[in-house]
């Protein structure tokens, strides 16, 4: 008996162990894979599937291959929307991140009285749902009964209508800035808190000014946070939807149904019943966002020590 088992074991063990190992691995990864496939992969796969078809009111559904993509790449409405959110990105994001950085530095500087009060009140707008914020600002923008109207009546000024086609993008930028300065401030502030105190002490011994401390220590130290916040903002800008969608009811002629790519995809799908084309626009927009965010990340991380 004792002699047989050693001979049997080497033969059986590898196969048995290998199959067991494989099974255990799947057991661990299974639940995650199931959820991952269901929640992440399936919707993307379904969108891609949808984008390859075309459903018509007359004629039903037919397979069209990449025709929808071809159409989208030549669609002036899509490119106009993309241009608009790009402009938004280039102007609004630097302003918002600049303010957030200033506030974070001020809070971190330690010379501010009522630090926690400022911290919480600047962060507060982020806790207001975007829909509520847009409604609130929309009412304030009103030139007849809104705050702008009241100011005009009171001061005899004629502040131009923020809901007019020329100013509406700036008006949206203002809402978004108001909403997200606090959020970005918090990212920067928490990054600043972990800068080792010894660096500041060393700087003090060397006789560095506050400005030099900011430039040479603080900003390089939070470079990672800056890149992350920028990437979030790029994604947020390209996905701009809530604010224009809410303001549309107040300024129907200023915000068209294709004002931003996301709004365009929404209108295509829910007013035009062009689900296939809508999926195509969404996929193209997703790809563009991914590429730009990735480029920014590569660029931003390159010089990191």
């Amino acid at each position, binding site marked *: 008996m004792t002699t047989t088992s050693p001979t049997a074991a080497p033969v059986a063990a590898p196969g048995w162990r290998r199959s067991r190992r494989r099974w255990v691995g799947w057991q661990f990864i299974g639940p995650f894979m199931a959820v991952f496939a269901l929640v992440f992969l399936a919707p993307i796969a379904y969108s891609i599937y949808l984008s390859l078809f075309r459903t018509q009111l*007359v004629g039903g559904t037919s397979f069209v291959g990449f025709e929808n993509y071809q159409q989208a790449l030549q669609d002036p409405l899509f490119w106009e929307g993309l241009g608009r959110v790009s402009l938004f990105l280039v102007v609004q994001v630097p302003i918002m991140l600049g303010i957030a950085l200033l506030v974070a530095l001020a809070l971190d500087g330690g010379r501010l009285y009522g630090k926690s009060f400022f911290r919480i009140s600047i962060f507060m707008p982020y806790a207001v749902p975007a829909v509520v914020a847009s409604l609130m600002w929309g009412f304030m923008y009103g030139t007849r*009964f809104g705050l702008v109207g009241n100011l005009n009546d009171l001061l005899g000024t004629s502040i131009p209508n923020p809901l007019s*086609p020329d100013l509406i993008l700036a008006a949206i930028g203002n809402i978004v800035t108001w909403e997200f300065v606090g959020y970005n401030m918090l990212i920067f502030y928490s990054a600043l808190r972990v800068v080792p105190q010894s660096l500041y002490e060393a700087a003090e011994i060397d006789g560095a000014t506050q400005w030099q401390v900011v430039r040479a220590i603080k900003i390089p130290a939070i470079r990672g946070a800056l890149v992350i916040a920028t990437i979030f903002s790029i994604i947020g800008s390209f996905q701009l939807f809530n604010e224009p969608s809410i303001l549309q009811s107040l300024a*129907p*002629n200023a915000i068209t149904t294709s004002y931003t790519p996301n709004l365009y995809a929404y*209108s295509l799908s829910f007013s*035009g*019943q062009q689900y296939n084309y809508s999926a195509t626009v969404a996929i193209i927009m997703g790809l563009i966002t991914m590429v730009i965010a990735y480029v920014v990340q590569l660029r931003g991380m390159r010089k990191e020590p």
Partner: protein
Amino acid sequence: MTARHRRALRGAALLGVASLALSACSGSTDAGGGSGDAEAVDTASVLEEGGEITVWAWEPTLEDVVADFEAENPNVTVNLENVGTGNDQYTALQNAIAAGDGVPDVAQIEYYAVPQFAIAENLTDLGPLGAGELDGTFTTGPWTSVQSGDGIYGLPMDSGPMALFYNQDVFDEVGVDVPTTWDEYLEAARAIHEADPNAYIANDTGDAGFTTSMIWQAGGRPYQVDGTEMTIDFTDEGTTRFTEVWQQLIDEELLAPVSSWSDEWYQGLGDGSIATLTIGAWMPANLESGVPQAAGQWRVAEMPQWESGAHDTAENGGSSLAVPAASENAELAYAFVEYANAGDGVQTRVDGGAFPATTAELESEEFQAKEFEYFGGQQVNEVLAESAANVVEGWQYVPFQVYANSIFNDTVGQAYVSGTTLDEGLAAWQESLVAYGDEQGFTVNE
């Protein structure tokens, strides 16, 4: 918008998809007639058995109808939800249908939108449930509007022959007569705005339903649909007649830049800064509930005319109650719809100020003679019933009017905020619609 082309199209047998929108009354009788008797028995037991249904509607008088219906049928619970007016609701409905979840059992759908939902097979054919037996219950226009092919996709709830609602106090103050032609209307607009720079004769920020109804009254026929073939042309005489006058109102800034159904709009109707509404006959109930502060100030007159002495009107809005195909309780839903639109609910709604689509109520003396306290005791329904009889025939909508209206502000709306003219805006609208129609498989302008 209701009653696309009434008598003119009766009997016209249209082929293909668009026939959904347009087919005549005769088609539907056989669809529902046979099975109707069997189902009629069921209705009582369905009500007895009870259940819960969700109704999406913005019609204010339905609240009382729901209360009565629940009182009469204690086992039934009706959840009345207002998810938005017009397009907002259609978007929500489309959304729910696409998601296959949260679809209501009953939805208010304006006549112009019925074909689009019917084409997509989103609505239950009510013929077999009992609607097949209701021939003759409703006025012709609305009744044809809810039929598509062989199916009946909703029961008419109200109709919207247009009239001029005006604030008598404003006209008295300014000292101008209530306009009977559109030229007089333009003059009155100038006078009112001159007397008070904050007051306007009307509000308008570009409203597809209003614009198409105005073109309808002016004799324009921009949409001509025949089966899957159609022409879309916003350059005909009737259309330009309208744009000529309206362009002047826009250019001289005589229209309040306030969107209908907004809070500002209700305020404006209440404080006299919006002096008139050219709108469908379903408006009295909305005025009473939405603008209580102006009680006694409003009156109703015939719609201003394009030629003095004429009596042309058009339909504006008006809606049906339909049962979405995804409803799991279609029989109970239909029982409610029939109660509200063809049963006891009609009188309740008429009492609440609604303008019915049922012949019995419209023609009754009691209805026409009713004095409206809100309108200073005026017998409003007389004017409105008169308007119903004077609707210009031959109007058609395209079978994707919901989409068309959704992009109205992208194109025509630009005339209200930029240097674009109405004519240019309409041309841009036309271009978009032709492209959409082609894409959807229709033959447009060929």
